[in-house]
């Protein structure tokens, strides 16, 4: 199993090589190194999977300790991996989707002169993310946890000469770091409770060290969840993710949809033994998840920017995952994580293909009628959109239905209802986006004064938008193939979680790890299962039909100015933060700066002046004699010593 260390090491080597030498090489060499290392990581993940499969289900867990990293007093944190079904499943998703997005990037970033820096960052991200999922203890995981945050910052601000991009990168870093305070405190508490943060040891000791529902368990679970709300963009720390769309679109696909943002879900599943001791914390997770799911879905409704629609959609879908793990459906949370990685990456890549064709345009009001001119892109987007909306037989249908039915069967009927309503909104916003971009005639959405646009995009010959007669075409094969692969995965991915007899493949694979007490109530007849699925499907279809009626047929007009305004401002959350958090902190900092000079410095200098004899001494010091005094200090010391000696 020691070979598993190669999984993060390959991309890390790619980072080092491209980071140091990339600028001297040709773009082709850079691309080969970057993609090759990620494909190699995927291959090693497959090999490790094969090794695990050869073992009996109960023995599929191996700790690989590299060396003692931090060790002093009672605090011990080795640098080590935990190779088990969960980490290998995640490593496969991350490296697989990552490899496809790396390949896509070769085409997407073909015109950018800083491609070496781009791929170096992207490889560093892969290394961090793979380390995050493979790490064997919380402290080691924190390396990856912060590493992906760093790469997110670097890649959001990739076009750093654009002020919005630079600002969005900083915002992402700071907001997630606020959550990471919780994560860090969680680590400290784990050391206090367990004396270690080794995942296996904690899982084994959770039953004895953490009284069920006790304050320690609840605090630990909630602190770690605070970290998850930052990294996975949940209420109330989601605000960085929409702005993160300033980064290149493949970055949005990889980091801000498929992998990094799901780290919080993975962490909770990894720590599920602790969460099982804290039912209250689990309820908080589920409630935050459901609330985020519907909030972000509603926020996506009025968004004019295609990438930001997908960003809100990601926030919303992450909410579903937290709802799933919050009701104890660990493997279904991972199932939705996986299927979402497929279809959301696909949606982003298709959106990227649209932008690529339109010279970086992201404002849907400047698009329209592209289905005929970008057939392959439209097809890919449609597959992703149907999966997101939860239409049978795409992967999203199965994974979302699994979570909805888990919530229902866990007795959380209210949360189920909220999630169901959110499913309707999901179908609504994604169908609206599809209609605006691909179906409706151009200009239908009544373009605003200022368009939204990605990057300084040197590849684009200026801001074309949808100028008549402009050359608008599907992307080159290097971008089309990864989209095709993801579309295929989106079509087939449902098989991972759904089979005639539940549990599905994924649940059985993760089973030995997660089984004990995982699902609160797995009771449920096939009849009720079918009814729940039908309800979900009906809501999704209703959403799509509504869009068709409103936008395409114009049979319905839904116009409420108040609702429009509230939606357009995303419920004023960001305005509230700006007024209630950012502005006061800024004011305090400025005030402290003045206070420091006027009050503290004034007090100290005044005291010195008083002691020094009304300033007479100071005046003389200031007139240039000070250096003599300083030299005299040493002499004075020696004189004092001499005095004591001869006393």
């Amino acid at each position, binding site marked *: 199993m020691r070979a598993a260390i190669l999984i993060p090491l390959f991309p890390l080597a790619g980072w080092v090589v491209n980071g140091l030498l990339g600028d001297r090489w040709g773009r082709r060499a850079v691309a080969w190194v970057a993609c090759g290392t990620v494909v190699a990581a995927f291959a090693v993940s497959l090999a490790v999977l094969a090794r695990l499969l050869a073992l009996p289900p109960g023995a599929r867990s191996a700790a690989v300790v590299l060396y003692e990293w931090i060790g002093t007093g009672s605090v011990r944190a080795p640098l080590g991996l935990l190779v088990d079904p969960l980490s290998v499943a995640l490593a496969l998703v991350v490296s697989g989707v990552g490899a496809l997005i790396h390949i896509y990037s070769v085409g997407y970033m073909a015109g950018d002169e800083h491609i070496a820096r781009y791929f170096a960052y992207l490889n560093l991200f892969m290394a961090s993310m793979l380390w995050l999922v493979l790490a064997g203890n919380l402290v080691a995981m924190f390396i990856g*946890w912060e590493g992906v945050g760093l790469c997110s910052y670097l890649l959001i601000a990739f076009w750093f000469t654009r002020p919005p991009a630079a600002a969005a990168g900083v915002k992402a870093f700071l907001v997630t770091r606020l959550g990471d305070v919780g994560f860090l405190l969680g680590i400290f508490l784990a050391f206090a409770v367990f004396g270690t943060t080794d995942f296996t040891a904690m899982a084994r000791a959770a039953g004895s060290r953490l009284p069920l529902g006790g304050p320690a368990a609840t605090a630990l679970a909630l602190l770690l969840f605070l970290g998850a709300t930052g990294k996975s963009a949940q209420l109330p720390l989601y605000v960085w993710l929409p702005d993160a769309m300033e980064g290149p679109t493949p970055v949005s696909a990889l980091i801000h949809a498929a992998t990094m943002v799901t780290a919080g879900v993975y962490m909770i599943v990894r720590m599920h033994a602790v969460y099982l001791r804290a039912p209250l914390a689990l309820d908080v997770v589920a409630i935050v998840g459901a609330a985020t799911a519907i909030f972000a879905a509603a926020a996506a409704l009025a968004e004019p920017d295609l990438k930001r629609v997908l960003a809100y959609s990601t926030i919303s879908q992450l909410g579903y995952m937290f709802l799933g793990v919050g009701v104890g459906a660990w493997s279904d949370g991972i199932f939705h994580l996986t299927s979402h990685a497929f279809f959301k990456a696909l949606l982003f890549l298709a959106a990227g293909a649209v932008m690529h064709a339109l010279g970086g345009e992201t404002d849907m009001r400047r698009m329209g009628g592209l289905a005929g001119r970008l057939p392959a892109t439209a097809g890919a987007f449609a597959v992703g959109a149907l999966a997101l909306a939860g239409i049978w037989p795409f992967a999203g249908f199965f994974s979302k239905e699994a979570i909805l039915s888990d919530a229902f069967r866990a007795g959380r009927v209210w949360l189920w209802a909220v999630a169901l309503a959110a499913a309707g909104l999901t179908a609504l916003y994604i169908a609206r986006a599809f209609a605006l971009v691909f179906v409706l005639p151009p200009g239908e959405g009544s373009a605003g004064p200022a368009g939204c646009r990605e990057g300084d995009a040197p590849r684009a010959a200026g801001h074309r938008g949808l100028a008549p007669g402009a050359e608008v075409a599907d992307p080159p094969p290097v971008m089309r193939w990864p989209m095709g692969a993801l579309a295929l995965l989106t079509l087939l991915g449902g098989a991972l979680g759904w089979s005639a007899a539940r549990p599905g493949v994924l649940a059985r694979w993760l089973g030995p790890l997660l089984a004990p007490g995982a699902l609160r109530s797995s009771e449920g007849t096939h009849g009720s299962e079918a009814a729940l699925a039908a309800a979900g499907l009906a809501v999704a279809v209703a959403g799509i039909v509504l869009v068709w009626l409103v936008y395409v047929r114009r049979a319905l007009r839904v116009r409420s100015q108040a609702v429009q305004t509230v939606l357009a401002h995303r419920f004023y959350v960001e305005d509230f933060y700006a007024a209630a958090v950012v502005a006061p902190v800024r004011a305090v900092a400025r005030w402290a700066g003045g206070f*420091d000079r006027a009050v503290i410095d004034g007090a100290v200098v005044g005291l010195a002046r008083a002691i020094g004899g009304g300033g007479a001494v100071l005046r003389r010091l200031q007139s240039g004699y000070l250096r003599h005094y300083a030299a005299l200090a040493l002499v004075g010391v020696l004189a004092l010593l001499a005095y004591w000696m001869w006393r």
Partner: protein
Amino acid sequence: MPGILTALVAVPLIGAAGVALLPAGRVRAVRAVGLVTTLAALALAAWVWARFAPGTSGLEFEERAAWVPAVGIAYHLGLDGLSVSLVALTAFLFPLALAAAAGQVRDRVKAFVVTALLLEAGLLGTFMAQDLVLFYVFWEAMLVPMYFLIALWGGAGRAGAAIKFFLYTMAGSILMLVAIVAVYLGSAAGGGAPTFDLPSLLREPLGVAPGVQAVLFAAFAVAFAIKMPVWPLHTWLPDAYAEAPPVVTVLLASLMAKAGAYGLLRFCLPLFPEASRAFGPLLSALAVVGILYGGAVAWAQGDMRRLLAYGSMSHMGFILLGIFAFDVPAVQGSLIQMVNHGVSTGALFLLAGYLLERTGRARTDAYGGVAATAPALAAAALIVVLSSLALPGTNGFIGEFLILVGTFQARPAAAVPATLGTVAAAAYLLAFVGRVFHGPLRDDLRALPDLRAREYAVLVPLILVIFWVGLYPQPLLVRSEATVTAVLRRVAAAHGPAPRAAPAVGSRAGGGERTP
């Protein structure tokens, strides 16, 4: 027979004398002799560091000679876990600083090099002295050259900055001197001869009343707190850091601040255990205030070096917090963080110096988009910033993590707000990166040159240390663990009179009890 530690102090002194003999016009020769001298000191320090045997709490490489036997003053040098890495850090940073100074100090180069070498001798002696008077002499011998470095080679406001530095310093020094004499007199209470020798002083409890002990503790602590600096004794810092030549700021922030923290661990905790415990909560509170206050003020600064100065103060708050948590991981974190802070903050001020050298602009908003024209400089700055904001994998994380995890066990009420300081650090450091390196490239910066070979030579060693300590900190941690454990046992056990231990041959009692 003088040993290697004496040689370590002597090398910079001999180098200074050698430079003084050179004609002032031969600038290249002056610089070369200075650099070679510091490299020789580095070689000695590296040898000592490598040969230092971990696992014992006592002094190694000890040297002792009578100086003024009539009053019990001895020339007594020694290294233990508290000091061995700080000596290495000092010797490591001086050649880098002198190399960087070549581009920044062009007036009176000879005097500058001589003064810097005297400062190095003073600092090394401060970290090695085991006799209170000897320590005080080295302490003053470090402060006087520093005063001249600020006053003679500083910027436009150097006079005021130097005066403030001088006043603070004198205030602290006088307090410490009085306290040293009081400790000396108190040491005779047991009936023996009074002594200034630290290991001898620690052999039995000080014969002073608890109230007096508290006053003595406060006198020492104020002197050391001024140097760190601890809030609210910090107001000399922004002026001194911003007005000193950039390389001198490196020495101020990286080394002199450490002398303050080191003094607390070397003298305050072992000599006054009860008072340390009594003042512990107060100092922890001041540490938290310093972390958050420094972070907030740093964020509001428009001047690059003032921003970094307040940030440095905020980070020193973590070190103070760890010391007064009285917990092995926390104090270990403080010690390793002293090295980290020296490396990372030093590198930050070096980079600020490189920017100033290129443009002469002190304010961050006079920059913009520098990463587009100087990518290597920007990459180096980013790495250093990340280490300073404690990204895991870099050195800063090891220190802050150990400090916070240890403090969390001992004083959770202080650890929780202090952890918020990591967000503050990210805020002001990324603001620094954002204003200087990101944003649209200003037209008047298009010709800004990227790193030169000489600058690479200075930055690459620092960056290597950043990653080395971040990924494999054990060599540092094992060197200090035994001493730290002994010091803390002393602090914890000081309820009644400490057990009288028979002095062993060669007296290996360092900053605390000896281990069997």
